[in-house]
């Protein structure tokens, strides 16, 4: 089959969706399909939005047997066999309308744009033969705002067979971008309340220098330098695999993210339990408290308590790790499932 993978993009900004698209392309090609990736530029400015949306309507991909659309407003591209793997809306006009992130006034003109956008999005979405959402959060939003039903199709991680379990050391690892909304600082605060010698390993890049510097300072202040390692740099895939293979557990506790995040899936493939918090958002679709990890209150004390439990009750920790792996199958987080659903 000739398949076009379509998405909007901002040049030189590497959103997570680019990974999924590239990985899907490799997979489809492995299965003998011809794949073309179609990236089209898009800027979310209210004044310019509708003319860009109309431009997307004129994109002609009739040459493809099927198109799969990801980021908005790619779902407006017309095609006789359009499939959506919906990642998110233009959130300022949807769930972030009543938030400081809107970026323009809540006046008649902008409400008009918002209402019109909801309508047009709905009409474009309904042209699809099948609609998949990458998380329950997104699926719920499609229902709430556009009255559209969707099937949840979780994004798998690339070459999951790389991940394995080689044992359980004393470290809780957190491998993700080091940013304020990823909340590595909560883990640092938590460590001072622990009663066991559990350790913390934080790795990942940052956009700016402030947050990692503050983290580092705090670690010194709390005299935890011997128990916390902070690697503020790009971690290679091999390093990631190794860390997860040996760790005690993986922590991933961002503030209210839409999707579960690759760190939690990677940890699950490595048969390690996941430590997260009740306000982390999408991760909670994956993690079940006491089954494949712990969900705690977002307080240092609660996190400390969970970290101690992970350290002390190794049997349980290992068992939760195995459940974590099983949970992936339960939720159909696999490339074979993705392929089967997208090509049905």
């Amino acid at each position, binding site marked *: 089959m000739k398949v076009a993978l379509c998405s909007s993009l901002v040049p030189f900004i590497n959103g997570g969706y680019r990974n999924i698209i590239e990985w899907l392309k490799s997979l489809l090609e492995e299965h003998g399909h011809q794949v073309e990736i179609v990236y089209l530029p898009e800027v979310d400015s209210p004044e310019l*939005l*509708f*003319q860009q*949306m*109309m431009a997307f*309507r*004129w994109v002609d991909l009739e040459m493809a047997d099927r198109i799969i659309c990801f980021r908005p407003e790619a779902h*407006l591209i*017309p095609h006789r066999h359009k499939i959506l793997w919906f990642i998110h809306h233009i959130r300022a006009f949807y769930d972030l309308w009543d938030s400081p992130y809107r970026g323009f006034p809540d*006046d*008649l*003109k902008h*409400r*008009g*744009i918002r*209402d*019109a*956008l909801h*309508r*047009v999005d709905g*009409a*474009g979405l309904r*042209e699809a033969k099948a609609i998949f959402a990458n998380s329950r959060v997104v699926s719920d939003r499609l229902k709430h705002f556009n009255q559209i039903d969707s099937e949840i199709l979780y994004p798998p991680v690339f070459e999951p067979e790389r991940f394995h379990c080689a044992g359980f050391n004393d470290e809780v690892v957190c491998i993700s971008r080091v940013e304020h909304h990823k909340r590595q600082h909560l883990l640092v605060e938590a460590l001072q309340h622990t009663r066991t010698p559990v350790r913390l390993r934080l790795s990942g890049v940052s956009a700016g220098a402030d947050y990692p510097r503050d983290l580092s300072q705090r670690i010194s202040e709390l005299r935890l330098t011997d128990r916390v390692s902070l690697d503020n740099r790009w971690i290679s895939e091999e390093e990631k695999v190794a860390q997860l293979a040996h760790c005690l557990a993986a922590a991933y506790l961002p503030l209210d993210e839409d999707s579960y995040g690759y760190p939690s899936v990677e940890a699950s493939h490595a048969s390690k339990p996941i430590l997260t918090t009740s306000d982390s958002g999408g991760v909670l679709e994956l993690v079940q408290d006491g089954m494949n990890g712990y969900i705690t209150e977002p307080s240092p004390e609660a996190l400390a308590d969970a970290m101690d439990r992970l350290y002390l009750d190794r049997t349980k920790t290992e068992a939760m790790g195995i459940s974590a792996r099983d949970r992936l199958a339960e939720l159909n987080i696999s490339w074979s499932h993705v392929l089967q659903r997208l090509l049905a």
Partner: protein
Amino acid sequence: MNLIVFTPAGVRSAIGRMAALVTRELVALGCQVTVVRTEAQHLLSTDMHDFGTTVLAWDDEASVLALVRSADACVYQIGNSFEFHEVGVRWLADFPGLVCLHDFFLGHLFYGWAQTHRVQAESVLQNWYGKEMAERFFSFSDSESFIEGTREFMPMTEWICSRAEGVITHSHWGCDRVLNSCSGPVRVVPLPYDAPGAINSPFDRRSTDGGTLKLLTIGHANPNKRIASVIQAIGLSPLLRQRIKYRLVGAIEPDAMESLSALAAHLGVNLLISGEVDDSELNRAVNESDVISCIRWPVLEAASASAIEAMLYGKVVIVTDTGFYADIPESCAIKINHSNEIAELQSSLISLLEDQSRVVSLGAAAQNWAAKTFTAKNYAEQVMEIILDVSRSAPAIKAINYFCQTLRQWSYRDNPVVMAELTHKLHIFEQNN
């Protein structure tokens, strides 16, 4: 909502009267409204209707500009009079907004505007009506032939509606031209009226006196009002001759008076011609009557003030089933087909006589409906609703305009195949899908 209303405001202006009613309601509904008076300079100091809010004169341009720039929407009351609406046209050109269309025929307004915009005017005429028609527009020698020569084929409705973001018109009459030219939402909203002269509710009406029905026709007694047909309808039925008292109130030419009286006498119809009367006498005449004949042919008006007022008075109205009158619900008026005018008039009057309770019930239904429909509150609510509709259709319209501008820069010439190709995937942008 923060609104600017461009309108004539003087007491002489019926549009001003209506705009004042509506503005007060908009304010009551929570809107912030500023009124900009649009009459020609020499009329700006005349007494105004009470709008219940700030009224600015248009010549305070700096203030008006500042207001318009910060408003959510502009509302333009537009009618045919050049001296009342020229300013509205000017501001509409620079600041598109909602147009409340009081007249479908805007020939005089356009003519006045064309005096200082000749080249543009010719282009507008050609664009909407073609070269041949356009050449005729400025060729008429007097007012009457101008009206006759333009009202059907060049009413200039499109000129204003194409500049509007949305249009409220007051009846379905002539809606085609509006729909064809306005790219935004169009609504038919009944004109607001109040009827201060109506004195009683239909339920405590005095009963008809001795089985007689009082029939009334109001207004200038011209052939358009079909008075002769009414007389004939009565004259051809012994029952009606006996029981109907037909009165004409309003200006009447001597020869019309003579011929109608002669006709009535010849047929034995009880006809009273009162001629022109003052307001209080008119009120009394309406109150005393049972049935008011509003039949017309041809129908020229967009809305009929007299029919509306008659209904607000709780009277039975007999109308011709066309134009504005077609909008009246079946339960609130007696509708006659022009093609069978006299026969249907006759049978309706007879059936009223046979069941006089219908006089009360029809009148009550009419009053009920009119009171609810022709209200300033309803109008104001619809103004707010259509402004919302405009805000929702504006983004797509703006985008289309962007593309049209680009095509124009590329010297695009209209090609239906290309146009179809451009538009057929854009149906998802329609707001009523």
